[in-house]
Structures are given as structure tokens and as C-alpha cells.
């Protein structure tokens, strides 16, 4: 990169020629207001708030590369006037009566209004009326607040890869639309919610988060999503001084997801309707009876011994697994399969470079949403990567590619993918036949999507998927559906957060913490250890598995963690 000399607010500086004026200003710590520009998105220069003066001419600093001889002034009267008038035009374009807006206090447009001291409207607001699209389960779009910065469109395509949002018409009639102009709720929207996260105004909002609190009223807790083994970075907004979550945002700085989340990661915590186990219970001849922590400990201790086995699932964190091994020795097994049909031979960076993808038997939009985003943005975007879907049942990915094959015809997918340089096969579980066909294909790279969040942790701890019986069977985790059926004769102890139909058949139910009440680490699909931070206190009479296990192992908590 060439170094060039320019003048910045009168001072000569030497800068890299590839940078924009805004980049340089940021490095120099000079404030330039921006609105449509947002770091992970390609700059577009729509809002003109970032104009600066260069020898008499105004230039949008976010899109203008520095050039030798420039004399940049960031704060001249002309610059101020231009920004002020364009800001007035933005306020006057649609309806920005802040006191009736949910975003007031959390709005980048309003912030600029304060910065520029807007105390009146130059142009009459309320000139026209626009629709409010309330058709979506999680989101609402109030077009009256839209400033057409198109951050939502760009995020939906460039980052999330869904390519749902777009625009119609032109000029001041431009409207943000979904698909071919259908209500958002009827569109191909996957509910990843990134548009709401990136919208600078009160246009696209999370319904459940609305009116719960502003950013300044929140504690923002960095954490990791533990719903699937990808491990997306998140920021949890908890109402300060309260014990509820306002919203979950993707962490823009996360090397894994770069801000993008899927429907599960963003909304499950706000829409969780599973029935919590509110207290630990023991079953006797008269039915269930509540017991406290000491009662639980007493019974559990009495059941640990050579004839006890422990089953776990992939929802447990590494710290919990380590303690379980300490207590049960080698008698620890996984209730679900753990071994990859074929081990991964590439990682996420390999995935984001490939020219072709063969996705076998997983609906990425549904189960591994952000992995889906990584692939879709390359398939539907400029890179024009090729997507091949091999599946027998319904798979929503089939709507974005013509290359759809049944398991029987999997060879055809390989044939079609032939000329492509770098092809990654993405799968989770595979039948033996498919696995054998695949292993013969040396030219392909594999990315295995582990079955559960911490499946890799199970593998690393040497915990196998096996059926071993004992007189006393312990289960730790969420997925206790099959336990009773498998061990009809045993005394079954379940440490679990939820009640399900099968719960009634369990002998000792230990109500545990869940979700953001827990903390710990797990290994994601790349084998990276990720930390999940706690964001909530539990409100029920529930037990932290770690507390229970440390007692059972005879250690104090501080000794084990």
C-alpha cells in the first residue's frame, strides 16, 4: 500500500492510500457523524451526514478514498450547514415525533438531532402516511420512521445471507419490502432479527423487547449462545436492577458470527414456553413430594456406588462434565450419539472460502441458522458459490437452488459439483451408506455439525454413546425422554430444568438451573472452548448442578472450578 500525504484539519498526515477519509478521521480520533454507515456493511454514502470539505467541495467521507493533495476540513461552516440541512430533510421526510416512538432514547437519528441542536422542524412532518407492517411474529415494521438507510437490506443480504429485504419504487416513494412486496410475516424471512438489531431508528423493532427498556437502562452482558454447537457471540440486555432479559443481540465483534444470529439464538429466551421444573421432587407411594437441597443430597449420596451409572447429554458444560466424571468414574455415558460419521476436515474459515457446498440431510435454516447464513451469503451473493442439497424430506434450502437431489441420487450431486475448486460437504447425522459413499470422495472437504451444543466436549471427555444398565441410573441434562423407557427397572434420578410428559415416571427429580442462569464453557464445532456467562438469577427453588456435584464429589465449589 502506498503512503500518501494529505492535510487533515490543517495538519499534514501520512496515510495509506487505500483508506477512506472516514477511516483516517477515526484513526486520528476526529469525530465525523455517520448514520447509514455501519462497520461490517460496505459503505454506501446514502445519508450524507459524513460530508467533509476538500478544497471547497463536499465529499462523503465514508465512501471517498484519500488521495494525495487532499485538504480535508471536518468542521467548516459549509460542512455544518450541509449536515444540518440534510438532517432536517431526514426528520421531515417521514414521521419523527420522538415522543410517540418506541425508539426514543435508543435512536441514532435522534442522537444526531441532539448533536446538531435541532429544536424545530424546518419542513412539515406528517406529510404522508405509511403503513405499519405488523404481520410478523417477532418483528414490526413502522415505515413512518424509516430513513431509507437500507442498513436492514444490506444486513439481511450481505451479513445474514437471507436476501429477503429489498426496496421498491424510487425517489421519495422508495419503500423497504420483503420478497416481492409481501407482508414480512408471509415472506421467506427466517426471523433472524438482524434487521431489528441494525435499524438505527424506530422502524424495525423486536416485539417482545418493545417498551421493556432502553440501552441505558440495561446491563449488557457479553455471552455465548448455547443452543447449537456453533457458539455465536451474543450480548444479553438485562434490565438494570431487574432480573429479566430485554433482548439478545449478536456480538458484532464475534469472530464466529460477526453479529448475525438465528431465530433460536435471538428469540428463544424471550419466547420460551417450556414448563420449568419449579422444585425438586421425590416419588413415593402417594405421588411426588417436594424436597430441599439437603434431601436431594441425602438420597443421591445413598444411590452412588458401583451399581450406579450416569447418563448425560450435550447440554452440559465442560465443568459439569468434569465433575460428573469425578463422581461416577468411568460409568458415564451419553444418552445421544456423539461420534461424527466422518470427522471434519475443514473449519469455519474454510467454509467461508468454498466455491461449492453439498448439504446433506440438514435444514440449515432451521437447526444451524448461522451456518446457513455463512453459506447462503456466498451462494446468493456476489461470490455466486454453488449449493447442492441432498435430502429426502422437506428442506427449506431447496428454495434457493436448482441442485436438489435425493439420497439415492447423491452421486449426481458429486458429478455436478465436479468442476468446482473448493467444495465443502456439510452434514450432521448420516446413514452408513451415505457415509461410505462420502468417504470415497477424497477431493471433498467435510464439515460435521455436531448433534448437540457440547457434543465435542463429550468426545473430549471420552464419554461414549453406550447402553449400560445399573441399579441406580442418574441423568444430567435436558433430554431425559428416553431414560425411563430404557431402564424400566432402575431407580432413576434426573437433574433437569424442564418437565416433559415422561417426567412423571422419574423417581427423583432434581430441578436445575437453565439458560442464562447457568455459566460454564463448552467446545463449539471447531473445538474452540467458549465461555457462556450468566445473565440471570434463577427465580425458582432450583439447584445449580455444579453445587450438587461438588457436594457429591466431596469438594467445595471453589476447589472444583
Amino acid at each position, binding site marked *: 500500500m502506498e503512503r500518501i500525504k494529505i492535510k487533515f484539519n490543517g495538519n499534514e498526515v501520512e496515510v495509506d492510500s487505500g483508506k477512506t477519509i472516514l477511516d483516517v478521521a477515526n484513526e486520528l480520533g476526529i469525530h465525523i457523524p455517520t448514520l447509514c454507515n455501519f462497520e461490517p456493511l460496505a459503505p*454506501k*454514502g*446514502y*445519508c*450524507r451526514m459524513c*460530508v467533509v470539505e476538500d478544497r471547497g*467541495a*463536499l465529499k*462523503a467521507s465514508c*465512501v*471517498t*478514498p484519500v488521495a494525495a493533495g487532499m485538504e480535508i476540513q471536518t468542521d467548516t461552516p*459549509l460542512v455544518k*450547514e*450541509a449536515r444540518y*440541512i*440534510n438532517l432536517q*430533510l*431526514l426528520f*421531515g*421526510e417521514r414521521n419523527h415525533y420522538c415522543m410517540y416512538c418506541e425508539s426514543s432514547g435508543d435512536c441514532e437519528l435522534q442522537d444526531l438531532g441532539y448533536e446538531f441542536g435541532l429544536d424545530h422542524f424546518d*419542513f412539515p412532518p406528517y*406529510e*404522508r*402516511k*405509511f*403503513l405499519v*407492517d405488523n404481520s410478523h411474529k417477532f418483528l414490526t*415494521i413502522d*415505515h413512518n420512521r424509516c*430513513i*431509507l438507510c437500507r442498513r436492514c437490506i444490506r444486513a439481511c443480504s450481505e451479513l445474514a445471507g437471507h436476501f429477503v429485504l429489498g*426496496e421498491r*419504487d*424510487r*425517489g*421519495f*416513494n*422508495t*419503500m423497504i*419490502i420483503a420478497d416481492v*412486496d*409481501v*407482508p414480512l410475516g408471509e415472506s421467506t424471512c427466517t426471523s433472524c432479527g438482524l434487521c431489528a438489531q441494525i435499524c438505527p431508528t424506530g422502524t424495525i423493532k423486536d416485539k417482545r423487547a418493545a417498551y421493556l427498556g432502553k440501552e441505558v437502562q440495561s446491563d449488557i452482558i457479553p455471552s455465548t449462545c448455547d443452543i447449537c454447537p456453533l457458539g455465536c457471540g451474543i450480548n444479553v440486555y438485562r434490565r438494570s436492577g431487574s432480573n429479566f432479559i430485554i433482548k439478545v443481540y449478536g456480538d458484532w465483534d464475534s469472530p464466529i458470527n460477526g453479529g448475525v444470529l438465528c431465530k433460536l439464538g435471538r428469540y428463544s429466551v424471550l419466547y420460551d414456553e417450556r414448563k420449568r421444573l419449579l422444585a425438586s421432587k421425590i416419588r413415593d407411594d402417594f405421588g411426588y413430594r417436594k424436597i430441599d437441597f439437603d434431601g436431594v443430597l441425602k438420597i443421591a449420596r445413598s444411590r452412588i456406588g458401583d451399581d450406579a451409572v450416569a447418563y448425560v447429554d450435550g447440554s452440559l458444560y465442560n465443568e459439569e462434565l468434569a465433575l460428573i466424571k469425578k463422581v461416577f468414574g468411568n460409568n458415564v455415558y451419553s444418552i445421544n450419539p456423539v461420534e461424527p460419521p466422518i470427522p471434519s476436515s475443514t473449519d469455519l474459515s474454510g467454509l467461508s472460502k468454498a466455491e461449492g457446498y453439498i448439504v446433506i440431510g440438514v435444514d440449515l435454516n432451521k437447526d444451524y441458522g448461522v451456518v446457513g447464513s455463512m453459506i447462503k451469503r456466498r451462494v446468493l451473493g456476489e461470490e455466486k458459490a454453488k449449493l447442492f442439497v441432498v435430502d429426502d424430506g422437506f428442506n427449506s434450502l431447496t428454495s434457493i437452488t436448482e441442485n436438489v437431489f435425493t439420497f439415492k441420487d447423491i452421486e449426481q450431486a458429486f458429478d455436478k459439483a465436479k468442476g468446482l475448486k473448493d467444495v465443502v460437504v456439510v452434514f450432521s447425522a448420516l446413514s452408513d451408506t451415505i457415509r461410505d459413499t462420502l468417504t470415497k470422495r477424497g477431493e471433498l472437504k467435510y464439515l460435521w455439525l455436531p448433534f448437540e451444543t457440547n457434543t465435542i466436549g463429550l468426545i473430549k471427555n471420552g464419554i461414549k454413546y453406550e447402553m449400560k444398565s445399573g441399579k441406580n441410573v442418574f441423568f444430567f441434562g435436558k433430554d431425559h425422554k428416553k431414560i425411563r423407557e430404557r431402564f424400566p427397572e432402575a431407580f432413576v434420578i434426573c437433574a433437569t430444568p424442564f418437565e416433559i410428559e415422561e417426567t412423571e415416571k422419574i423417581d427423583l427429580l432434581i430441578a436445575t438451573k437453565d439458560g442464562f442462569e447457568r455459566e460454564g464453557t463448552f467446545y463449539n464445532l471447531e473445538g474452540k472452548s467458549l465461555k457462556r456467562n450468566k445473565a440471570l438469577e434463577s427465580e425458582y427453588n432450583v439447584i445449580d448442578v455444579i453445587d450438587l456435584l461438588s457436594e457429591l464429589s466431596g469438594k467445595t465449589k471453589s476447589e472444583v472450578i
Partner: protein
Amino acid sequence: MAKKNTILICNGAACISSGEERIKEKLINKLSEKNLTEEVDIIETGCMGPCQFGPLMIVYPEGSFYIKLNEDKIARIVEEHLLKGRPVKEFTWATPESRRIGEEKKQLPFFEKQFKIVLSNCGRIDPDSIEEYIGTGGYEALGKVINEMTPEQVIDEIYKSGLRGRGGAGFPTGLKWKFAREASGNEKYVICNGDEGDPGAFMDRSICEGDPHAVIEGMEIAGYAIGANQGYIYIRAEYPLAVKRLQNSIQQAKKYGLLGKNIFGSSFNFDIEIRMGAGAFVCGEETALIASVEGKRGMPRPRPPFPANHGLWDKPTIINNVETLANIRHIIIKGSNWFNSIGTEKSKGTKVFALSGKVNNTGLVEVPMGITIKELIFNIGGGIPNNKKFKAVQIGGPSGGCIPENSIDVPVDYESLTNLGVIMGSGGLIVLDEDNCMVNMAKFFLDFTVDESCGQCIPCRAGLRQMYNILNRITRGKGELEDIDRLEKLSNIIKKTSLCGLGQTAPNPILTTLKTFRDEYIEHIVEKKCRAHVCRFEDAEVKDKDEKILKVS
């Protein structure tokens, strides 16, 4: 056998719509009725220029220019002129004072001051015949370039000629080619901009319809010069005849080995494809046009990077206007010195204008640079009809501006026009007389740009609309004097901060009229009076632009 007479019948779009097909049929029937078919050659040509007099035809060798033809007139012309050799003078064109001057085309005042380079074939040859084009020296320039010149020599020749882009901005064509030639990359493209979105403009259309091969030849030479093998002609779908003729010409040129692989037996390959645009004004802007050719929404993007380095599919690309490209072959054959000798110091060659509005002779004219606006309107245009008083001329379309009466001695060249705050533009010239209200006229153009704004950047999208609202108030007698300040302030910021040329120039009609016709604005505001009696104040209810309730689904 030499034919006795040759008839050029104008097949330009205007003549077609005024019944050229019917006239031609009648002529053919009548000729065969009189057994003259063998004696007379009929050639259909592109636009001849004086469109308001169509349908038109010229009968050679006499050069009688027949206008406003109908079936009866055809019958008489065949009987009198073609059979008996006596031209029917009362059907030929002459202004009242020049009725006697004669029929030779050159002597008509409409043509006298014109200087035809790019229009030299329009109205003279059959645009559907490559043989006729070759007969006028067509494809000679291409042959010369390929056989005798290096690409650098071609660029140098064009640069020295002083040719500047005719699409509006007047950028030196040779320089643009040089940048593209020097840009790194093996794949490069040539795009011909035939979008012509200005309301009422038909210069480029007429060239494509009347002399399509000249455009193709120009593109090929450009391709040779910058090292491109592929060209695209971007033309609006509303020009079906131009599309048809270009398509036909491409096929003919390929058949003759003048386009495609190994042109003139050399190693130079060049192919051309036609891309049709949906007719948005902004698609004429080069970066929007590129997006449109790529199959995306036709939206401009910030420059730099310029297309010469990052153009179509991110490859080096030159975009030239139709008229620019039609000049190329003449420069190559006659030399840069010849071209350089026409025009003024910094503006060389000629410019085609579409003359319209309150002027006697409307139509297509080609004039040397440096001619005055006065000559254009009063000599070529024949002055203002109905003894009305000349008021101003709007030049450069919706992004241009007004030249008032006291400035009509200004020479038509890029610099002089820019000094007046107007632009050459692509060649629209609308003459206004005392019955035109300048405020209303400014509003009319703004209405156009408001509708055509692509809506990406805020100054153009919302600023122009606010200006329109203000003008709307003023023309309905609801304005206030502060509105003039508001207009000026908005204009200034919109021009300075808009992303593309549309917004950067859209306030021009307002700014130029505010400068020279400020009193008319004040009259509207203070006296609620429109001296041209165009604006109505009675029902002075301010209704802003039609409110459309926008729906989401």
C-alpha cells in the same frame, strides 16, 4: 440502367408516426400505375431533421424537399414531377420569406447554418443497408485503424482532435480512453450510452435510427483502442425502431466480417450486444447504467472508483454517448486537424440539438460549436411563431438551465455555457416565449427530477421534493418571501452533497431562473400574479404533490 430519379423518404420516428408508411405505399402504387417503378429508386432514411413538417421526402436530382405529405400530394407529385419533370413548388418547403430561394436543400435556412458530421448520413442513406453505409466510406476508418494504427495512435488522434463527450459532462474522450487503456486487466468493455432520458430529447435515437453503423464502427474503434473485445449498447426499450436497426446492422456487419472474430482478417475480435433499459432517467448515469447492464437495480454508486478502472463486472470500462461514438470514424478518416478546425478553442466539432418549444422550425439540427444561441433560434429555428416575444431558452434538459434574452449572444461551447450556470447537456433546447411562466417551468423540470430521483441519497430524494413543495406553494399564490432563501439554500446543499449527477444538477433550472427571473418569483409571491397567465391562484388551496398512500403489501 441509371434511374431517372432517386427519392429519399424520411423514416424517422416522427415521420413514421405522421404516416410515412401509408405515403410510401401510395407512392409505390402510384409509380407502378404510371409504369415508373423501374425509373425511380426509393430509399428510406433516418430522421432528416425538420420533424414538424413530416412526412417528408426529397426527390433528386432536383433536390425538391416535399413536406407535410398526404396521399393527394403524392398523386400530384408523381404525375407532375416524376412523370413530367415539373417539381410541385407549392408542396416544397420554404419559409414565407424564402419561398423563392429554391429547392436545393443546402439553401434552405434550416440547413444553411448547420454543419453535418454525425448527421451526415441521416436522411441520406438507407439505414438498413450496410452497402449504402459502406458506399459513404463506412468502415474505412475501422480498416485504417486496424491495419495502419496502433491503439496508442488511435487514442492520441482522438485526444488531439479535442473531442469531448456529448453525453453531458464534456469529458475529453481521448483521455477517457487513455485511462481505460492504461487500467490493468485483460478484460475490458465498451458501453454505448443510448439511454437518452431527457424528456423531449431524440438526438441519440435519431442517430441510431438513421446511421446505426456509425455507432457500431465507433464502438469497434474504441474497443480496439482500449483493448476490449466486447461492447454493449444500452438503449431504452421505448426505442424499438432504433433497437431493430441496430440489431440488423450488427448482423450485417458480422456477415461482412466487420464485426465478430478476426475483423478485417486481423487478430482483433469485437462483439456487440444490445441491452435494453426500462427507461429510468437515472439509468443514463454511468454507474447506474453499469449496474443495470449487470442485471441489478439501476442505481448510481459513488465515484471514485471510476468505470475506467472499475466498471462493468468490476473491469475497466469506457462509457460513451451515441453521438460521441458517431464522431469517431470521421475523425479517424479526416484527421484530428480537420476536426480541430471546427468549433471554438476548447470545444471542437459539432453538437446535435433537438430544437423544440416556441420556435418555427422544430427538429434535429447539427451545428458547429461556437454558434450563438441567437443564430440557433432565429436563423436555424426561424424565430418565434405568432409574433410572440422571445423570453428564454432552456438548455441541457432537466439538469440544465435557462438562458435569458440578454445572454443569447453566448456561443455554444462548454465553458461559455458553464459560466452562465447552465450546461450543454445532451442537446435539448426548448425555446420559451412570453406565454411561458418561468416559475412554472422550473417546477415542471423539478417535477421530473423528483420523480426520477433514485432515492438513495437524502438531499436529492427529500430535498428536491421539499423544493417542489415550495414551488408548488408559490405557483398557487401561497408562497412567502423566505421561500426564495429556502430554495437557494436547499439548491446549494443539494448540488453540493448529492451522490450522483442527477441530484448535483437538478436544482439548476431553479437557480438559473432565480438569477434572471427573480422578479417573476416575487410577483407570484407578493402580487399573486403570473404575467404569463399560466399559474392559477383562484383555487388557491395548496395541494402538495398527489398524496399516494403507500401500502406495504
